[in-house]
């Protein structure tokens, strides 16, 4: 947003992320001569591409002051639904279409409770997190379904378009589209405004419910797409696919400087955060750290991402009134 104050703060945050990114890249390149190889750089993305695709829409949702905990379950459900249909002999093209339509319906379902009944999205999507995963289990039980047609599997492989997989292409397109929408369109402005003050937006004639509805539908649709992309990358589907991804996705978004209370954050910050997290994981992989250690380093980074600005604020002796106080102290201009 074009606000002097916000910009200056976010700039420092983005600068901080950029700095970390540079450090991570330097360290990584020391760890392996192959780091800068295209294969590795593509791998960095390729292996987490579905998460970062969903992180884009999660950015909008959190800026809007909501949260969608059910994304990973929707990914798993979409993949399971596709596999289940495929198993029953439905043509894969048709199965994809049905899966995406069901994704939209799920988004409408989530959205209705949040937008029209005013229920807290944290609770509604927690129910979704458990429930959609459960729906996936009903479909696939504990089977592992695979043997999809070659063209479907090839979507997820690195050489689908040039050196890129379909996931990377989808990510690139969505990233640009959502960056423009969020920062330059009326819809994006509404997303921020509602995130800052739902009431003020409503009193200004903004169609708050409609905006929230659209966001939840987008979230479910994109998650379904991401679920299909995992299915194609791995070539087989189980009901527990993408389990636990919501933590990584939310971590990426918050680390990107998006406020958990809504109203603040940029796509650029999230983009940088994606690069930091992925490269960090890649580097730690190269240094032979296990998955749990990698996750805990990212977790530490997440906490630091809020602690550092808080400490800085504290050191500058800006005493806030209660916890509601925003980072920037307001100064009157008259």
């Amino acid at each position, binding site marked *: 947003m074009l606000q002097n104050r916000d910009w200056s703060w976010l700039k420092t945050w983005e600068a901080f992320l950029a700095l970390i990114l540079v450090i991570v890249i330097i360290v990584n390149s020391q760890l392996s001569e192959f780091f800068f190889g295209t294969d590795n750089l593509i791998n960095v993305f390729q292996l987490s591409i579905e998460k970062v695709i969903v992180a884009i829409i999660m950015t909008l949702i959190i800026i809007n002051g909501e949260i969608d905990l059910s994304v990973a379950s929707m990914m798993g459900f979409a993949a399971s639904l596709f596999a289940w249909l495929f198993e029953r002999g439905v043509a894969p093209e048709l199965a994809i279409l049905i899966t995406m339509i069901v994704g939209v319906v799920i988004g409408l379902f989530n959205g209705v409770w949040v937008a029209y009944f005013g229920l807290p999205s944290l609770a509604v999507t927690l*129910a979704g997190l458990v429930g959609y995963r*459960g729906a996936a289990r*009903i479909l696939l*039980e504990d089977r592992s379904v695979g043997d999809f047609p070659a063209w479907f599997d090839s979507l997820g492989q690195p050489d689908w378009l040039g050196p890129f997989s379909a996931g990377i292409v989808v990510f690139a397109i969505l990233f640009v589209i959502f960056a423009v929408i969020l920062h330059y369109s009326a819809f994006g402005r509404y997303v921020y405004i509602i995130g800052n003050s739902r009431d003020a937006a409503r009193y200004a004639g903004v169609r708050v419910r409609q905006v929230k509805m659209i966001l939840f539908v987008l979230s479910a649709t994109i998650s379904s797409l991401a679920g299909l992309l995992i299915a194609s990358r791995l070539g087989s589907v189980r009901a527990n696919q993408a389990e636990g991804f919501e*933590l990584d996705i939310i971590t990426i978004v918050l680390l990107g400087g998006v406020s958990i209370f809504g109203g603040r954050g940029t796509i650029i910050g999230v983009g940088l955060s994606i690069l930091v997290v992925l490269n960090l994981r890649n580097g730690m992989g190269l240094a032979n750290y296990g998955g749990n250690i990698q996750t805990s380093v990212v977790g530490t980074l997440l906490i630091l991402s809020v602690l550092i600005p808080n400490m800085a604020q504290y050191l500058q002796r800006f005493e806030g009134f209660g916890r509601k106080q925003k980072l920037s102290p307001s100064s009157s201009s008259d």
Partner: protein
Amino acid sequence: MNTIKRYLRPEQIRELSLIVIIVIALLIFGTQINNYFSIRTFNRISASVMIITVLAVGQTLVVLTRNIDLSVGSIVGLTAYVAGDIISKNNDLDPLLLVLIAMGIGAGFGIVNGLLVAYGNIPAVIVTLGTLAIYRGLLVEISNAQSILVSNMPDWVGDLPRVNLLTIGDFELRVLVAIAIATVILFQLMLTYLPYGRRLYAIGSNPEAAHVAGLPARRIVFIAYILSGALAGLAGFMFLARFGTITVGAGVGLELQVVAAVVVGGVNIFGGTGTMIGAMLGSVLIGTLEQSLIRMNINEFWKDALLGLFILLAIVSDALILNRLRDLWTSDEMELRVDSEKTQAPVSIEHKETGHVAKP
């Protein structure tokens, strides 16, 4: 009507309806499953509920203050591992001491969470999402990814889940279940009768007002996290006793079940309302579903879908029905009434020193 309103609050109606739902669920399962109404079923459900219940008690403390503790699953894993490791190496250790050690370790992790949330001013979701990952990583690191084995522990650990506290006829009350029930009662009493308990509600009800009223909000939240950590430590010990073998993945995902139990149990995720009894009932409902569906012929794979549905129902009924009830309860009949003559009399500001609380 007013008398009813006065002594039966909407929250209690909520809890009563939860009991009704549990009873209905039991009846339905009873028609579907042979030999359902037996001691075995009771033991089975109570054994599976006890760990969640203890965790739900801790979670409720935190959620009442408008915070959340997502790290409990990892704390359970860590304390289960460390406690198992200690007892494997010192087979003669006093059981009580082992429990205390587990709770102490849990409390230690609670301190970290509490410091970051209360004094570091970091949103609870972020802190505990972070420590969820960090504690798990720590477990992998300190365990060197090795497991704890039943065979290395003294027999009493593995046998504990089968030890009865008392037996009345066919009815057996297992020690671990009794501990869980005692925890619920203890903390329910704390919520009702200790100033600290009331302040948990106050902070969640209106954090700004708590600050202005001079309540030591940070300390109260901090202590809630320590208690939650200590209870997760206790749950970790119970986990060790129940499952015996502890891998680095122990307790993964428990936090979701616990949050679900608390929400289903009517604890407002945005603080201020909820009881330990409710949290326990939520756990019982979830445990009943889990252990009963597994025995049903239809399919255990329906478990999560049903659970999701129950959470949604809980939220929707809270929002649509409970709020109506609350409005009804607080409607005009008990409004402010000004007694205009009396007001003319000078107001005395003297009052009794001891106020409203009595020494224990």
